[in-house]
């Protein structure tokens, strides 16, 4: 019985060491097995990108940083690889300076891996700061004026990847890879008014709040955190590659099982204490 009571008060330091081990093992082993099932919203996202017509570009709006790199970078990786494979031109831009730097580093690595050419196949437009709604609605009317130049200061008119983009008519899709959710701005000010497909790539914790937009059609697809990324990789033919997304998905699996076990143990201890008539503490006020 004592053991059961102790189960609900394990020292948090022991828990921290255990979760560190549980997460580290799959990340170090890097299994390459990808999931067989693909959620419909991920498949829809794939179909949207796959059917972007020639003469249109895809906007990849990246509002993430080092903190959510584990979830958002695999999404960027999978999408960029797909677009390079299909020769779909796209631009990447961010909404803060640090994000601009980190997204460029990630994108350049993928560009080099896929032997793509900067300025011809894609471009990075640095970052924009200011009222998001004004910038998004402005770029839909005059893309060249609002976006101006790429991160190196080269005018967009000199970059073959993006020189032909005048306004929303040359935008085939918008992808919002984010840890802060700019989806509301994209929906209100560009994608729904101008009937441009929007793909949402949030961190997993934010994805639950996107299903009503998927239902109403304001979102055409979604990559649900790193799981969405790993499923997307299955669709683009990387289902057996040793990728960060695959390793992270198995680390997530292990962590979820660990947390469920802990909750069960904690509740066993709680029930045991309750049966023994021991008060386990109430709300703390005063």
């Amino acid at each position, binding site marked *: 019985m004592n053991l059961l009571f102790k189960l609900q008060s394990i020292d948090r330091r022991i828990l921290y060491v255990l979760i560190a081990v549980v997460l580290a093992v799959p990340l170090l082993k890097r299994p390459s097995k990808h999931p067989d099932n693909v959620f419909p919203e991920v498949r829809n996202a794939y179909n949207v990108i796959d059917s972007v017509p020639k003469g249109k570009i895809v906007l990849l709006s990246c509002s993430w940083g080092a903190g959510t790199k584990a979830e958002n970078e695999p999404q960027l990786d999978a999408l960029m690889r797909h677009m390079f494979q299909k020769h779909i031109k796209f631009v990447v831009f961010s909404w803060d300076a640090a994000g601009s730097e980190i997204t460029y580093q990630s994108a350049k690595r993928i560009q080099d891996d896929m032997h793509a050419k900067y300025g011809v196949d894609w471009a990075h437009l640095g970052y924009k700061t200011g009222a998001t709604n004004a910038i998004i609605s*402005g770029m839909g009317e005059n893309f060249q004026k609002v976006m101006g130049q790429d991160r190196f200061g080269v005018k967009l008119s000199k970059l073959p990847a993006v020189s032909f983009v005048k306004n929303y008519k040359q935008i085939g899709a918008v992808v919002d890879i984010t840890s802060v959710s700019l989806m509301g701005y994209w929906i209100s000010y560009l994608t729904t008014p101008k009937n441009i497909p929007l793909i949402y790539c949030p961190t997993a914790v934010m994805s639950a709040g996107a299903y009503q937009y998927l239902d109403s059609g304001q979102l055409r697809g979604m990559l649900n955190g790193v799981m969405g990324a790993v499923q997307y990789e299955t669709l683009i033919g990387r289902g057996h590659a040793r990728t960060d997304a695959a390793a992270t998905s198995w680390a997530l699996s292990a962590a979820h099982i660990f947390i469920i076990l802990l*909750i069960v143990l904690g509740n066993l201890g709680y029930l045991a204490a309750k049966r023994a008539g021991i008060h386990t503490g109430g709300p703390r006020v005063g």
Partner: protein
Amino acid sequence: MHSLNYIPLALASGRYSSLILLAYILGALVIGIAFLAGLMATPPRYRKIVVMLVTFAGGLYFSLEFLLPHNPIYIGKYMIPGSRGVANLANGLTAAKPSVADWAMIIGSFALLLGVSNLFQIHGKAVRKKTPGWYNSLAFFITFFLIMIVGFLKDYKLGFLGSHNAAAFQAGSGNLYNILFNGFVQSLDATMFSLIAFYIVSAAYRAFRVKSAEAALMMGTAGVIMLGLVPVGAWLTNWLPHTGFFASMRLEQITYWLLIWPNMAVQRAIDFGLGIGALAMSLRIWLSLERGSFFDRQL
């Protein structure tokens, strides 16, 4: 609107480019200072009215651009008088969006400067007065200037050093920048975010107790969704067929059903409530109806 387009033309041509740019900057400064001086000179009882008018005008653009009809309104073959003028106004507002975006970016950039100047004031005071922990403020200044200088130098060749030395210096700056940005900033950012993984374990373990039937239902649902979203969940019910009635008992199918039906309905309800709350507060601020110590103060 047209005069603003002269800047790129003049700069592109190279003629009088610096003079024109200087003239615009000075002009903007003069107008800004004149506006502030005018506001300070306004008698206190009129200042609130000025603020109310500016607030109202500021919120008017996007409202009008969305709400005004962009085409003349006809009843049968009869056009409502004035509707063409309204449509022209609305279309003009839409055409002004790129300029509004420029203004938004300019004003947003001021906030960056404001943040930096605030930091300088606070940390400068701490270093001057040697308050407890002043060395942290000194570290702020050192790292601020270091990464700023190195960040500039990695992209610019210092010609006066000679081409060989300039290239070496630029490469060295680049390496130092990588150490500071990738080694420090990114790693520290990722480390702080990673703490959440540990904290969620201790929070879940401590707080999630099945004290009622509702709590049990929530726990069960949470467990199903946690497992259904990861590969191991699909593996657990892989023995069930992929099609037919029993396919709906697969863990990932149950998870998906929970997400797209009950979860979606509740999220939509919460979003409606939040949306109306945000509408009410925005309306109060726009029409200067908001009350509270900040809004009721003497200006």
